[in-house]
Each structure stands twice: as structure tokens, then as C-alpha cells.
């Protein structure tokens, strides 16, 4: 670590609080960070940690209600708090999470990239546009002239984010602030954007602050990490060292809670408890209520203590952290089920749109196109795919919440009619993604849980009351929660109530549609563990749908990979997670393969492979013309590809800089 150069951004003792009508909210409490010139600092924290507040404070965009103070806040020797307005957009560029919201839908991409050059640098119009085009080209955008004319809604998420980065770079900044720049994107696109950022940092000598909740992505790009917890920095140090041997219990906890394909068949270790109340900050260690190492002395204010080369930790017991378990004991490997399938789906198809009375020419777009899958009693089938692949539509088709255009659906050996009877409804239930929307905000937890009991005539009166108690216990919520309303619960608690509601009917089959995706890692781990335990104790079968292959790898016995409405690969989890892979699975699993994926811009034409437009291993015309065959890689493990299994077993990475790991900067 070269420590010599003066940092481009140096913040010491930054505190931010907001006045709210009832109490003062302390968003940041004595946060310090420094970014040496040309380096990338990762700022990691879960929701409520204050990480976005840091970005807004550096940009001077916190607004009137915030009171900001800092012992020192300098950008290249200038006072950041006083000069923020002059620096942002010029010497400090910023990229926000949601490119769809950050781009103006009414202006062309070209204008939005050129705008900073027109207003800040006062370049002539033609020159600004020429430079904007060059920038977009540098960011890997194909057909630049066309894209310059396009409006944001015509671009895919990844392209929009590239355009946003181009707009941020237009002012020739020296520091780029990236606030969750890839969170709204699919994993394969995320890998490409990270790759792009890595390249920019090398080619332009940019310094960056990468703010993220995702330890996986900061590891790929950052030189140093700073971990935030509830408004305080808890740990800072070189990325590799922090990730390999975290010294703060919270960092350790985050790593233990992160589901990863490599750590399959181990039990995640969630962080118990919830974020402390920011209205009355604990003068002592604010992680105390959740910390497995807490002792009486932790109630004293904690300073950032040195802990190894260039590392600091806000914990007086940091030497003990290495002894904390990272993962719990392995769970028993899933037993292959010999029983007859519980759910048997064949060739299920559903399209949207299509010709109407007035518009006869419209074509119907197939969201789900001939999906087949079987789920055995007590089995967890993980369905992984990125946004728009049709996985949620499939979930609704299987529960007959949407009518199918074609295909067969059988449950427990009997075909399920278009309008299923109550018995099917009782036995097949759903857990939904959004914790805020999945519970009726006007009903108490008790009323929410009693409804299915009454609807199916399962229990009444005092018996229903006992049933509610049983359900709350199943999802490990205190009984006192009966009388609460959804807004009085945290995200993880809401999700538990959603699970309890689905379990109320004692179903045999649960569809979990992105059931943990909206939760913070530490909470997500607890819900995943809960779902796993429920399977083990109740024998419920799940169709577990997620865009996150880490989550799927963790929980599923069988994995189905879906792309554009169709299965690409299926098989026992262990087989799917190890080579041979389908090229798309490979891209999901490895950032290296993902960055070789092409930018998809057209839907496939004709009968060829659905992945042909983006496939990094595409063979040629055959992929466009002929439908690929199902190849049997091992027992029950099948891959839909023209490439023979033996060849698929060898990684498809092309040699060269794009496939290599992050180049080390001197």
C-alpha cells in the first residue's frame, strides 16, 4: 500500500444529523475516510448505515434539514463543505443507483452526456457532442450515433448505467462517487459495469468511492474498505485483508451471512437483532445488542484502534474476532426423493400482448415459453434467472394465478384445472418479495394470520388463536406481535409474517418468489435458515425463485437456470454449480465469463438458441438457426447447448486482459 501521496478526499469526524418533528436523527456519527489519489475506496453498509448520506454530504446535497459538521473535509486541499457546489459535476462526478431515475426521460442520451460540457466547460455544441460520442464509445456502447439520439426508455438497464457513467465523466472529474451503481442491474451486467469501472480507473487515473451493501462486488474493485454500521465506521483496511480476516464482529457477521455458491451445504450465520434506534445513539458500542462478543466494557465509547498494517477497528475485543465461527455446521445433504413428483409442469407457456381487435399486427411476446419442471415432496427447486426471464410469470402460472396459453400442470398426480378448487389453493401457497407490499397495512398480524384459517375453515375462535401462536412460533416471532400492524415491523419480520401466512394452511408446496431479495444480508440469512428449517421439519416443497445464484446455491436441492422464458440448464445443485456449465450459467457464476457476454439488444429471431444474442461461447450460425439439444452431463443434469459436454467442462474464458483478474495498480 502506497501511503505517500496526499489523499484526494479526506474526511475526518463527519457527523450528520437531521431534525425531525419528534426527535433528532443521528445519521452519521464521527465518520472518517480518506481516498488516496488513483485508488478506489469501498464504503460498505446495510440499509440505515448512513452510506448514502456520506455521498450526499460530499456533494453538498443534504438539504436544509441536515446539520453537518466535520473536523476536516477536504477535496484536494479545498474545503469540501464550503465548495461542494463548485466541485460537484466538475471535479467530482457521481453515479446513482437507479439509472432509470437519474436520467431525464425527456432528453436524448447525447444531450444528457454533453450537458456538463456545455454548461460547465462552455464548449461549443458540436465539440461537446463529439466528445460525448467519444465517451460513450469508450464506455463500450455500440452504435454510438444511434444511441446519442435515443431516449432513456429505449435503452436497457446496463446501457443506461453506462450512459450515466458517461455523463458523470463528461465533466472530467478526478473523483467518482458511485452510490450502489450496480444494485439495480442484473449480475451479468453488473460484472460488465465493474469491469468498465476498473478499466476507467486504469486509463484515466480516476479515484473512486464505491458505496455498496454488497461485499461481493466491493471485493472486485476496491483497494480499501470502510465498513459502516448505524452511522459509525467500524472497520477500515485493505480489501483483501478485511475480507480474508475481518476484525470487527459486524464485518465478520456480514461475511457469515452472505450466501455464496462456494459455501453451499453450510449453514448461514445470521446477525441477530436489528439496527439500533438512530434517534438515541448509544455512546458505547452501538453493535452491542447484536454482538456475540459483547461484555460490560463495551458500554464504554469505542475508538478506532489499530489492528494490523493499515487497519483500524472500532472494537476493543478485535483480537478475539478471528475465533468466531464464520459458518455453522454443514447441514445434512439433501436426500434425493424417489417419490412421485408433487408438482409436474410440462411445456407451460404464457405470452403477453398480442393482436387485439384494433391492433391486429401486434405479436404476442412469450414471457414463459414451454417450461417444464418437476418438484418432489420436500424438495427445494431453485429457479434462477435475471430480470425479465419470466420466472415470476412462471410462479403465477404454476399457482394458476394467471391463465396459461398452453402446457400441462399436474399437482399430486392430478391435473390442475384453470380454476383450481380450494384443496389445491390450500396445498399450494406463495411467499412474495416485497415485505412492504405483501401484508395488508390495515390489518394486525393476528387478523392477517387468521384470514387463511377462516377462509379454508381450518380453525375458529380459540383454536384459531392457538394456531396463530403456533405459526408465530414457527417463524420465530414473539407472541406479542399478534396485535401489531405491518408498519410496526421491520422488513425481516414482515417477511416472517408473510411466510407464516403461507404456512397457515399447512401447505405441501410453497412458491417463494424472490422471498429474500429485498432484505439486508444479515436479515436474509436468518430468513433463509428459517425456510430451510421449515422444509426439514414440515417437509414442505419449495419452488424458490431468485435472481441471485448465491441464494439459490445455498438453499436449493435442484437448480433450474432460466433465460428468456426457457430452461437452459437443470440438475442437482451440486452438478449445476460445478462444470460443465451452460454458457449462461457460467456467466451467472463467474464475473469473468459474464464480462464476455455481449450487450444484448435484440430478441433472438427464428428457432435458434435463446441465448445466442449474448452468448460468449457462441459457435456461429448454427446457434442462430437450429434449436440446441438437451445434453446429458451426468445423471439428471442436462444442458441445452450445441457445445458438447466435454467441451463445456473446460471453462470458456478467452485468455487475455478481459478474462484476467483485476490488474494490480502500482
Amino acid at each position: 500500500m502506497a501511503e505517500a501521496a496526499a489523499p484526494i478526499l479526506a474526511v475526518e469526524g463527519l457527523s450528520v444529523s437531521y431534525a425531525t418533528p419528534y426527535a433528532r436523527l443521528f445519521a452519521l456519527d464521527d465518520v472518517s475516510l480518506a481516498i488516496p489519489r488513483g485508488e478506489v475506496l469501498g464504503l460498505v453498509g446495510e440499509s440505515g448505515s448512513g452510506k448514502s448520506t456520506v455521498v450526499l454530504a460530499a456533494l453538498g446535497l443534504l438539504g436544509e434539514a441536515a446539520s453537518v459538521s466535520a473536523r476536516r473535509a477536504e477535496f484536494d486541499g479545498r474545503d469540501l463543505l464550503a465548495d461542494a457546489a463548485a466541485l460537484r459535476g466538475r471535479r467530482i462526478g457521481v453515479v446513482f443507483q437507479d439509472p432509470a431515475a437519474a436520467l431525464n426521460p425527456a432528453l436524448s442520451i447525447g444531450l444528457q452526456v454533453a450537458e456538463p460540457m456545455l454548461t460547465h466547460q462552455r464548449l461549443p455544441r458540436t465539440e461537446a457532442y463529439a466528445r460525448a460520442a467519444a465517451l460513450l464509445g469508450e464506455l463500450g456502447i455500440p452504435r454510438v450515433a444511434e444511441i446519442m439520439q435515443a431516449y432513456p426508455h429505449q435503452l436497457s438497464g446496463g446501457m443506461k448505467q453506462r450512459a450515466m457513467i458517461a455523463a458523470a465523466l463528461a465533466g472530467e472529474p478526478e473523483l467518482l462517487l458511485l452510490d450502489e451503481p450496480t444494485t439495480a442491474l442484473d449480475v451479468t451486467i453488473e460484472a460488465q459495469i465493474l469491469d468498465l469501472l476498473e478499466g476507467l480507473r486504469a486509463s484515466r487515473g480516476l479515484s473512486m468511492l464505491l458505496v455498496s451493501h454488497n461485499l461481493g462486488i466491493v471485493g472486485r474493485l476496491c483497494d480499501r474498505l470502510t465498513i459502516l454500521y448505524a452511522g459509525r465506521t467500524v472497520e477500515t483496511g485493505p480489501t483483501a485483508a478485511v475480507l480474508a480476516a475481518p476484525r470487527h464482529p459486524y464485518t465478520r457477521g456480514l461475511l457469515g451471512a452472505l450466501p455464496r455458491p462456494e459455501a453451499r451445504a453450510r449453514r448461514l450465520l445470521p446477525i441477530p437483532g436489528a439496527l439500533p434506534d438512530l434517534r438515541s445513539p448509544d455512546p458505547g458500542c452501538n453493535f452491542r445488542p447484536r454482538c456475540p462478543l459483547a461484555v460490560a466494557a463495551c458500554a464504554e465509547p469505542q475508538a478506532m484502534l489499530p489492528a494490523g498494517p493499515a487497519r483500524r477497528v472500532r472494537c476493543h475485543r478485535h483480537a478475539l474476532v478471528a475465533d468466531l465461527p464464520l459458518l455453522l455446521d454443514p447441514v445434512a445433504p439433501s436426500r434425493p426423493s424417489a417419490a412421485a413428483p408433487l408438482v409436474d409442469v410440462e411445456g407451460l407457456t404464457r405470452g403477453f400482448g398480442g393482436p387485439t381487435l384494433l391492433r391486429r399486427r401486434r405479436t404476442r411476446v412469450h414471457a414463459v415459453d414451454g417450461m417444464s419442471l418437476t418438484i418432489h415432496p420436500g424438495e427445494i427447486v431453485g429457479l434462477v434467472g435475471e430480470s425479465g426471464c419470466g420466472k415470476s410469470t412462471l410462479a403465477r402460472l404454476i399457482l394458476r394465478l394467471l391463465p396459461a396459453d398452453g402446457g400441462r400442470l399436474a399437482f399430486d398426480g392430478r391435473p390442475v384445472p384453470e380454476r383450481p378448487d380450494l384443496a389445491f389453493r390450500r396445498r399450494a401457497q406463495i411467499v412474495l418479495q416485497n415485505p412492504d407490499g405483501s401484508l395488508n397495512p390495515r390489518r394486525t398480524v393476528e387478523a392477517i394470520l387468521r384470514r387463511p384459517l377462516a377462509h379454508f375453515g381450518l380453525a375458529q375462535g380459540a383454536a384459531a388463536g392457538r394456531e396463530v401462536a403456533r405459526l408465530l412460533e414457527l417463524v420465530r416471532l414473539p407472541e406479542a406481535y399478534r396485535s401489531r400492524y405491518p408498519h410496526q415491523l421491520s422488513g425481516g419480520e414482515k417477511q416472517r409474517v408473510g411466510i407464516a401466512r403461507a404456512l397457515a394452511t399447512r401447505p405441501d408446496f410453497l412458491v417463494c418468489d424472490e422471498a429474500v431479495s429485498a432484505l439486508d444480508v444479515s436479515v436474509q440469512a436468518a430468513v433463509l435458515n428459517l425456510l430451510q428449517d421449515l422444509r426439514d421439519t414440515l417437509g414442505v416443497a419449495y419452488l424458490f425463485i431468485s435472481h441471485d445464484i448465491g441464494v439459490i446455491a445455498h438453499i436449493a436441492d435442484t437448480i433450474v437456470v432460466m433465460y428468456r422464458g426457457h430452461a437452459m440448464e437443470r440438475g442437482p445443485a451440486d452438478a449445476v454449480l460445478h462444470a460443465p456449465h451452460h454458457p449462461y450459467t457460467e456467466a451467472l457464476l463467474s464475473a469473468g465469463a459474464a464480462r464476455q457476454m455481449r450487450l444484448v439488444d435484440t430478441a433472438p429471431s427464428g428457432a435458434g438458441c435463446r441465448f445466442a444474442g449474448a452468448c460468449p461461447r457462441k459457435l456461429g450460425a448454427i446457434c442462430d438457426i437450429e434449436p440446441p439439444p438437451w445434453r446429458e452431463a451426468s445423471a439428471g443434469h442436462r444442458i441445452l447447448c450445441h457445445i458438447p459436454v466435454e467441451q463445456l467442462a473446460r471453462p470458456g474464458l478467452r485468455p487475455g486482459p478481459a478474462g484476467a483478474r483485476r490488474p494490480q495498480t502500482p
Partner: protein
Amino acid sequence: MSAAALRHAASRRLPGTLLLGGAVLGAIAVLAVIGPWITPYNPTAFAVRFRFVPPGAAHWFGTDEFGRDVLSRVLAGAHYSLVMGFGATALSLAVGVPLGLLAAFHRGLVEEAIMRPIDLLISLPPVLLGLLILAVTPPNLFKTVLAVGIVYVPILARLSRAVALGLLEEDFVTAARARGEGAVSILAREILPNAWPPIIVESGLRVTFAILLGSSLSFLGLGPQPPGSEWGLMIAESREFLDRAPWIGLAPGFSLCVLLIAVNLFGEGLREFLDPRLRGRAGG
């Protein structure tokens, strides 16, 4: 928990507009109910010797062309406006909300069958529509309420459909569908409890307009008939004497004003109280 409880308690603080509007409205309602017993004079008795007496100690609001006490007539007429305002709104709620919810739930044919006639109704000016409904038969209070109520059905139907469409996308509705719940059950249990705040707020506004429209129709002779002392009707009858005895028209006009302002304040207060966005702005 304490934070949540605090938020909860704070959000229940009643806005001043709601209290003021409610108080005035309550007072008017009490006067309307006990009016017949406290009128100083018989509101319909002629007293030829006392025609056009200006406001004074004996007749606070003066007397009209037949010598009737204007204050007594205003008191006796108060119930008309209240019945028209709240009755008509209740009617349009009772018809419009179910229609709107059903249209939202059953997209397609049912929706078209409900919404197209409603679009047609909404395109007609309210007074004209009221006239159409009333002109064919002899008018009375009940019919005015009916006419005004029908005029506002489309507005409430559209609003409830729009609110319900948004709510039907929510996950908790999907969960209800996954239980196989029927339309009525989903609408009543899942949608309505979440849809009513905007509907109630709109209803507050509707009461104002219903009172106005009812009075306008009375003014045109299509409401309660003389000698009933509906305020719009009183204003209409006083027109010829506006130069000689302005108080005959001013008294009911002023009363109407106070009533409308009270209803408006109440509605505004209700909106502040129920609208989570306004509450959120205050709560940070």
C-alpha cells in the same frame, strides 16, 4: 417500539381545520335538528302588518314580503342543505364505490359495461344532468337528493376504480388470490380498508358541491317547493326585493356560505389527517 408508538401517537393528532370545521358543522347540524322548536316565529305564518321589517331586536334577520321571520325560515331550512349535501354524497358513495371496485377487479367486459356509461355521464355538466333528471316529474326534496347523488356517482366510481387498480397490484392481494378468495372478499377485506382514505377525502369535497348543486337546483325551482324554506329557494324568491330588502336574500346566502366553509374546512382537515403523504411530510 417506542419510536413506532411515538409516530403512531403523533399521527393521530387532529388538525385544527378538522376541529374547527367539525365544530361549526356540528353546530349547524344541531340547529337544523332542533330548529323547528327554537324558531322564534312560525316560519310559514304570514303577518301582513310586518312585511319588510329590517333586521332588529324583534326580527334579527328581518322579515320577508309576507311578513315571515327570516331567521325562523333560515333555521327551518337548514336541514334541507344538510340532507342534500350528505344524503346525495352517501348515495353516490353507496353506488359509485362498488361500481368502481368491480370495474377495477373485472378488467375487460364488466369494466367496459360499467365505465363507458360513466364516462358518458361525466361528460355532461352537472346542472344539466340534474335538470334532466328532475324536469320530467314534479320536484321534491327526495328527488333532488337522488338527482344530485346520481350526478356524483361517476366521480366516485372513477376515483375508487383508480385507487383499487393500484392496490390490486400489491402483493397482499396476490396472496389473497393464491388462497382462492373471491372478488367480493378481496374487495371488501383487502382493497376497501386501504382505499377508503382517498375516497372519504373526495366525499368531503362532494358534500360541498352537492349542497351547492342542490341549492342551485332549488333556485331553479327544482328542489323543495314553497313554502319550504330551502336556502337556494329563499334566495330565488328574494330576488325581486334585493333593492328594497336585501336581508331576505343575504341571510340564507350567508348561512350557505358558513355551511360550505365549514364543510370545506372539515374536508381539508380530513385530508390532512388521512393522507399519508401529507402526514409523511410532517413526520420526516
